[in-house]
Each structure stands twice: as structure tokens, then as C-alpha cells.
């Protein structure tokens, strides 16, 4: 029963002469929080995008619970329980914050035709409000998301990824621009969902982040990428002690 939740094998993606991702393999176990770190331009975002069908990888294989999902697009992966955030802000700028959250989960409720004349909030209003409260954006809940500050939008973006309670969530720099107190909040949230949320589901995460305190505290294992390749995979302690990693990324 040690089937990995996510298994990536020899993933490659090149842009012309630039090998953005050059043969990356790793596995994520159910219930694991997996960190991805590495210098700027080392291929982390490209790795996410090719795993999630946003761009087509040159070669490689992606398995979800043993099923080959290499050809799946973002939509199918979401339907299979994979959520994500983007490195650049991706909110629905003309919708209110609350609607942003509701729309993030509504497609997981009922059938398409069932939704045709269903109530507007799909019964998700309470859940949205709870997340809004948790991220302390109550006072802007009815503002258009496009009119929020950078950090507020980032929070909305992250909250959206959790609305449908996915089994696996891929987060690309969730803490960038977020106030340190809320960074702690995000960390707690991830841990809560990971351990045993009320729903009884155990969520797993893959997190790209440059905030080392956050990563080291949160992640069970960490992968270090450099120049599109895996330099090391290990526990936070191992990574911290890795001389190579120190030189390439963490600095003295």
C-alpha cells in the first residue's frame, strides 16, 4: 500500500536552447508536504506547469495514484482532485472576493445541468466566509478582487485553491508578498488540512517557496532544483546540511 500519490518520471521541457526542466523525477506520498526550492530560473514553475497540463512537456511521465495523467489538461487534473495556485496573481478581477471563492468550488457540486438553475452560491457561501475570515480579508469580501492590494489578491488566490478540498495542491510561492503573520497562518492551515481536517480527508501539498523559514518548518521533504535538474531531495535537516545546496541556493 505504498502507492505514491504523485509520481513524476524524467520530465523534460526545453525552450529552444534553454533546458528549463531537464529530466526531473520525484514522488510525493499521500499525506506528504513536499517542498520545491531552487534559485531563480531553475525550472520550478515550468515543472509545475508541465505537470499540470498548462504546457506540454517534451518527455516524461506523470502518474497520479498510479494512473498516467501525462496527457491530462488542467481541467481534468482539477477534476481528479488536484488544485493549484500560480506564481503570478490569477484572480477573477471583476468578481467579488466571495464570488471568487464560490466559483472556485462550484464545479465540484452536482452536474453541469443540475447547476443550470441552482442557487447562485451553490451552497458554498458558508465555506467561503470561513476561509475569508481565516485569511482576514473580511473587510474586502465584497470588493472586486482586482481592486485589492497585491498581498490581498495573493490570499484570495490561495484560498481559492482550497475551496474544493483537493487531495493534492500545488502552490507556487504562496507566501510572496504576504504579511509574516499570515505566512504563519498559511502554514497552520496547510498543516491542519494535511493532518486531519474535519472532512476526514488527508491533503497533500507540493510547495514552491523562497521563504526558507516557512519551507523548513512545514515540509516533510524538500527537493532542490538547480538549472532544471534535481540537486537533492531530503528532509529539511538534510537539505540544510547539504553543502552543495548551501552554495547554490541558501547562501551562507
Amino acid at each position, binding site marked *: 500500500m505504498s502507492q505514491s500519490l504523485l509520481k513524476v518520471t524524467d520530465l523534460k521541457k526545453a525552450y529552444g536552447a534553454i533546458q528549463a526542466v531537464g529530466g526531473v523525477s520525484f514522488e510525493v506520498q499521500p499525506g506528504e508536504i513536499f517542498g520545491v526550492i531552487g534559485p531563480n530560473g531553475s525550472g520550478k514553475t515550468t515543472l509545475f506547469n508541465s505537470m*499540470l497540463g*498548462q504546457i506540454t512537456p517534451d518527455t516524461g511521465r506523470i502518474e497520479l495514484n498510479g494512473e498516467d495523467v501525462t496527457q491530462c*489538461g*488542467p*481541467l481534468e487534473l*482539477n*477534476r481528479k482532485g488536484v*488544485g*493549484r495556485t*500560480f506564481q503570478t496573481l*490569477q*484572480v*477573477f*478581477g*471583476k*468578481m467579488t472576493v466571495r*464570488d471568487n471563492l*464560490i*466559483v*472556485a*468550488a*462550484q*464545479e*465540484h*457540486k452536482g452536474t*453541469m445541468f443540475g*447547476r*443550470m*438553475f*441552482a*442557487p*447562485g452560491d*451553490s451552497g458554498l457561501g458558508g465555506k467561503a466566509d470561513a476561509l475569508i475570515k481565516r485569511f482576514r480579508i473580511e473587510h474586502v469580501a465584497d470588493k472586486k478582487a482586482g481592486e485589492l492590494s497585491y498581498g490581498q489578491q495573493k490570499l484570495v488566490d490561495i484560498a*481559492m485553491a482550497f475551496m*474544493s478540498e483537493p487531495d493534492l495542491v500545488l502552490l507556487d510561492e504562496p507566501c510572496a508578498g504576504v504579511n509574516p503573520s499570515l505566512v504563519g497562518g498559511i502554514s497552520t492551515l496547510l498543516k491542519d488540512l494535511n493532518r486531519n481536517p474535519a472532512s476526514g480527508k488527508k491533503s497533500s501539498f507540493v510547495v514552491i517557496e523562497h521563504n526558507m523559514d516557512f519551507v523548513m518548518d512545514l515540509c516533510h521533504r524538500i527537493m532542490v532544483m538547480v538549472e532544471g535538474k534535481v540537486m537533492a531531495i531530503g528532509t529539511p535537516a538534510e537539505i540544510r546540511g547539504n553543502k552543495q545546496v548551501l552554495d547554490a541556493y541558501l547562501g551562507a
Partner: protein
Amino acid sequence: MKKSTLISIAVAAVFLCATPLFLKNYGIYLLTTWLIFVLATMGLNLTVGYAGQKSLGHAAFFGIGAYTMALLLKAGFSWWLGIPAAATLCFAVGLVLGFPALRVQTIYLAFATLGFNTAVWLLMRNEEWLTGGTFGINDIARPAFANANLVYYYVVLAFTVALGLLLWGLLRSPWGKAFTALRDNPIRAESLGISIRSYTLLSFAIGAAYAGVAGALFASLVQFIEPAPFAVGASIMMYLMVVVGGPGYFLGPVVGAAVGVVVPEWLRDVPGVSDWYLPLFGAAVVFLMVWLPDGLLSLPDRIKAKKQSKEASAARAAAGAKP
């Protein structure tokens, strides 16, 4: 529902039902035309205003609906069959037209749809065996009881109100949110499980079905059709109506169609204007856009915002005055 909303609805209902009683033939004809364009642009508002798909091919559906009605009547079918037939056919063609939208967006999509419109128009013009070509199809019937212009007006009114309510329900449902999400940020939408493909196609198909019904009603109103009213220029006018009214406002098409259909007629009758009514109409459109870029229906929002800011600055002044 708020009391003020109820009152507005009542006033609108009285207006719509009573006005034609005071009008002569032409007035009724104009009012009916307006309703038909409200119906057609309601569909376009879904496609363009809510789902953000830049379609410049709406008149093609309008035309397909009109020809469907005309040809079915000529073939001896009932008028009541013509309406659902027009809607269904347009829905199907609309689904097909949605496919380019899965590949291209913005202006590219606008021209793909514009090209589709040209193609449909060419078919209407050249396939004389079916459409009568440029000679058109004459003597298109109305339902027997609605031969009088006034009665036909109420028939059209009934369709417009019923389909309007249906759309209203749809837009308030999760579908409405999904369309808006599609417009705002398709990439994010897809990663949240919103099927871009389904909603894009549906936004075209539903919009097209509305145009189809409108076209069928139009055929029976004018009782003669030929390709010209379904050419690209008409699509552009419909787009104009949606944007002038306020894209993404539910009642935008009601105002927009009034601008596009009634204002030119009104300008004609202003003394001393007659020759210049079209240039004036053009200038009015420019002026409206510059004044209210988000459409006429953004006016209440704007007034509200003004009021709020006034209150806020008053509050600030009061706060500042305190020691």
C-alpha cells in the same frame, strides 16, 4: 425583493403593455422591432458581456432564425413550430461557431465570427433555390390570431419577457458565475475545474438561440426577408447596442437596443435634422461611449459612487475638525 424594485417592475409592465395602445401602426412596428432586438442582443450580451467572447457574427444567427421560420412556413408548417426550430438550429450552429473560440480570442475571434457571418450571408445570397437569393422570401405569415400589428406586438412581448426571465435565472445560477469567470481569467478558471470548452460553446449556443428566436419573430414582423439585414453591418450594430447599453448588465440590451433602434427614428423626426440623422446618431454613440465607457447602465453605479465619496469626504472633514 425590495419595494422600489417591485415598483419599477410594475411601472415597466404598465409601460410595455399600454404604450402601443396609444401608437399608430408605425409606432407599434418600431416598438416591436425594438423588442426583437432586445431579445437578440440579450443573447449577444451573454456571449460578449458575460462570457467575454468577442462575437461579431450575431446577425448570422438572427438571419438563420429568420430563414428557418420563413422556409418552414412556406413548407406549410405551423408558426409555432418555427420558433423552436429556429432556436434549435441556431443553438446547434452556435455550438459549432464556438469552436474557433477555443483556439483564438479577442480580435482574432471577432474576425473569425465576422467571417462566419459573411459566409452565412453569401449562402443566403447565392443559394437561390433555398433562400430566394437577393429576391428574398415574401409574404411570410404570422400566427392567424396575431395578424394585426398590435396583437403581434403582444406576442413578441410575451416571448421577450419569458426568455428574459429564463436568462435572468440562468445568470443568477452557478452558470452565470462560470461565464463571468471565463471572461475574467480563463486560465485560472480551467485550473479550478471550470470547463472552458463547455462554457465557451454554451455561451455561443445560448446566445445564438436567442438570436434565432428573435430572427424568427423578425421574419414574421416584416413578412419579407432577404440577405441584407443579416450582413456583417448588422452584427456590428448589435455589438454596438450591447456595449452602449452596458455589457454584463442584465438590462443593458434593453437600453442598448433602444439606442440602436429608437434613437435614429427619433432623430429623423427632430425638425431640421432629417438629412443629418445618421451622422448625428454616430456622434451620439461616440459621445455616449466617451461619457460612459461602461455603458449607459453604469450611470446609476457612477452616481452612487459619487454620493459615497461625497459622504466620505464630509466624514473626513468632520473627523478632521475634531481636536
